[in-house]
C-alpha cells in the first residue's frame, strides 16, 4: 500500500480499536480523553512517518504510542487516575501499573460492550448511528456528515449532545446481564439495521462511502455472531438479510452512480458467494421458535435472490409481506406488498388494494407504484399518477427516473 493511503486505512481500522479499549478502561464518562488520545496518536503518526522511515509494523507502532500516551495521562492526572483506578480496580488484579490490553480478544470484547453502551433508546436513533460510525467504525466527522447529507457542525453537535446524555444516564461500557440481553439486543440490532439501510438506500451520491456503511454494519453484526451470548436467531437473521442485499451491490448501481431498479439489473452481477452466505445464516437463524421482522425480511430478500420470475416466488414474497405487515406496519412494506400482489395475482387485483392505501397519497413512491400498476391497464391513469409522483419527488435522480417512465408511456 502506498504511504499516503496507509494512514487513512489504518485510521479506519485501528482508531476504533484504540478508542474502544481506552474508553472501556477509563469508563464512558471519560470517553473524550480516550478520543483525544486516539486522535493524538494518529497526529503523531502523520508527523513522524512523513519525516522518517515507516515503522516495520505500523499498527503495533500506533498501539505502543497510544499505550504510552494513556499511561502519561494517568501519571499526570492524579485525580483522574484515582477515579479511573476505582473504575478499573477489578481489572487491575495484582498489577501495580494499569495494563492497556490491545489484544484482539480484548479489542473485540471492548467493541461489543461499546456497541451496547451506544445503542440506548435514551438518545435518538440517528445519534446512535452517528456515534456508532464515529466510535465503532472510526469514520471521520466529514464522512458522517456526507452520509447523512448534513454538515460537520450539525454532526459534531449531535454527537456531543448524545455523549452528554449517555454520561448523564451513567451508561457503563459493559456486557448486559443474561436476562437483559434480548431487550438490549433489540436496540443494537435496530441501529445496525438502520446503519446498513443508511448505506443501502441513502441518496448520498458517494457510492464508496455508502458501500462502506453497509460493510461496517455487517462487520459489527458479525461481531455479535462470533460472541456466544449474542449468537441468537434474530442476530443471524439480520446478518442473512444484509448478505442478500449486499449480493446486489454491483448490479444495482451503474458506472455513473445511478440506481438500477431490481427488474432491470444484470443478474450475472449478483454475488453468488454472498447469496450462499446469506442462505447459511438464514438456516442458522431458524433455530428455535422466534420469528422476528429480520427473519421475515431475510426470507423476502432470499426470494429476491431467485432469478426465475415464477408465481411461487411472488406468492411467497406476498405472504411474507403479509406476515411482516401483520407484525409491524411500515409504508415501504405496504408498497412492496402491493407490488408483490401485482406479480402474484395480476395488476388489476393490485390496483384495488393500492387504491385503499389512502394514508400514502403524499408519497411519490405510492404514485410511482400506481403509475406502474396502471401501465397497460389504463395508460391515462398511469400518466396522471406519474405526473403526481414527479411533483412529489425530491431528488434529481428520482425525478429523472420518473421522467423516463413518463416518456416510455407517451
Amino acid at each position, binding site marked *: 500500500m502506498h504511504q499516503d493511503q496507509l494512514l487513512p486505512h489504518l485510521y479506519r481500522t485501528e482508531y476504533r480499536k484504540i478508542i474502544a479499549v481506552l474508553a472501556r478502561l477509563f469508563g464512558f464518562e471519560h470517553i473524550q480523553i480516550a478520543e483525544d488520545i486516539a486522535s493524538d496518536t494518529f497526529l503523531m503518526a502523520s508527523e513522524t512517518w512523513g519525516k522518517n522511515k515507516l515503522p516495520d509494523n505500523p499498527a503495533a507502532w500506533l498501539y505502543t504510542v497510544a499505550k504510552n500516551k494513556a499511561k502519561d495521562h494517568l501519571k499526570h492526572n492524579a485525580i483522574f487516575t484515582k477515579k479511573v483506578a476505582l473504575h478499573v480496580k477489578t481489572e487491575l488484579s495484582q498489577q501495580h501499573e494499569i495494563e492497556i490490553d490491545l489484544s484482539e480478544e480484548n479489542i473485540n470484547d471492548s467493541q461489543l460492550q461499546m456497541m451496547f453502551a451506544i445503542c440506548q433508546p435514551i438518545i435518538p436513533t440517528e445519534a446512535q448511528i452517528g456515534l456508532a460510525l464515529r466510535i465503532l467504525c472510526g469514520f471521520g466527522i466529514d464522512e458522517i456528515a456526507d452520509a447523512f447529507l448534513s454538515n460537520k457542525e450539525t454532526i459534531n453537535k449531535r454527537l456531543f449532545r448524545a455523549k452528554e446524555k449517555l454520561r448523564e444516564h451513567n451508561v457503563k461500557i459493559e456486557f448486559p446481564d443474561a436476562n437483559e440481553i434480548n431487550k438490549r439486543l433489540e436496540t443494537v440490532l435496530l441501529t445496525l439495521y438502520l446503519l446498513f439501510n443508511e448505506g443501502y438506500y441513502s441518496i448520498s451520491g458517494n457510492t464508496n462511502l455508502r458501500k462502506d456503511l453497509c460493510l461496517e454494519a455487517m462487520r459489527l453484526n458479525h461481531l455479535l455472531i462470533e460472541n456466544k451470548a449474542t449468537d441468537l436467531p434474530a442476530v443471524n437473521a439480520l446478518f442473512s438479510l444484509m448478505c442478500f442485499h449486499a449480493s446486489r451491490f454491483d448490479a444495482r448501481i451503474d458506472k455513473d452512480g445511478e440506481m438500477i431498479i431490481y427488474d432491470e439489473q444484470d443478474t450475472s452481477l449478483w454475488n453468488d458467494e454472498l447469496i450462499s452466505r446469506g442462505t447459511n445464516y438464514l438456516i442458522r437463524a431458524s433455530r428455535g421458535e422466534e420469528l422476528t421482522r429480520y427473519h421475515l425480511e431475510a426470507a423476502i430478500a432470499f426470494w429476491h435472490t431467485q432469478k426465475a420470475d415464477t408465481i411461487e416466488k411472488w406468492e411467497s414474497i406476498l*405472504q411474507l409481506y403479509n406476515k411482516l405487515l401483520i407484525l409491524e*406496519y411500515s409504508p415501504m412494506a405496504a408498497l412492496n406488498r402491493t407490488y408483490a400482489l401485482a406479480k402474484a395475482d395480476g395488476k388489476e387485483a393490485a390496483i384495488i*388494494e393500492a387504491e*385503499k392505501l389512502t394514508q400514502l397519497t403524499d408519497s411519490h413512491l405510492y404514485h410511482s407504484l400506481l403509475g406502474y400498476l396502471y401501465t397497460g391497464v389504463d395508460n391515462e391513469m398511469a400518466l396522471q399518477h406519474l405526473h403526481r409522483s414527479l411533483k412529489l419527488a425530491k431528488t434529481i435522480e428520482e425525478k429523472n427516473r420518473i421522467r423516463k417512465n413518463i416518456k416510455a408511456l407517451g
Partner: protein
Amino acid sequence: MNEFLLIFRRDAGFDAQLTPAQMQEVTKPWQDWMGGLAAQNKLANSGARLAVDGKVVKSDGVITNGPYVEVKEALGGFIIIRAASLEEAAELSKGCPILSTGGNVEVRQIVPMQ
C-alpha cells in the same frame, strides 16, 4: 381513529372436516385479507384463532362444556382494527374470508378505559 373488535363466528364443524392441504388453502385468504388491512395501517391487533373446545363458568360455580351457543354460531377468532367509524369498520369487514364459508363478523367499538 377508533378501535373495533371484529368477532368471527362460524359453523364449528367446518374446521374439523379440513385436511391439512385444505387448511393451507383456507389460510391464504386470511393472510391476504389481514395483510391488506395491515397495509392500510388499520390492523391494531392481529388477535387470535380460538380452539373449538371450551368451558363456561357460571355464577353458581357450575362449569359446563362448550360450545354454549348454536354450533353454527361458534366463536372462531377475533382481531382488532382501526377505523374512523362503525360504518367504516363494517365496510372493512366485508372482505373477511369467514363470509365465504357461511360465517359472520360482529363489529363492536372498543370503549377506551378511562
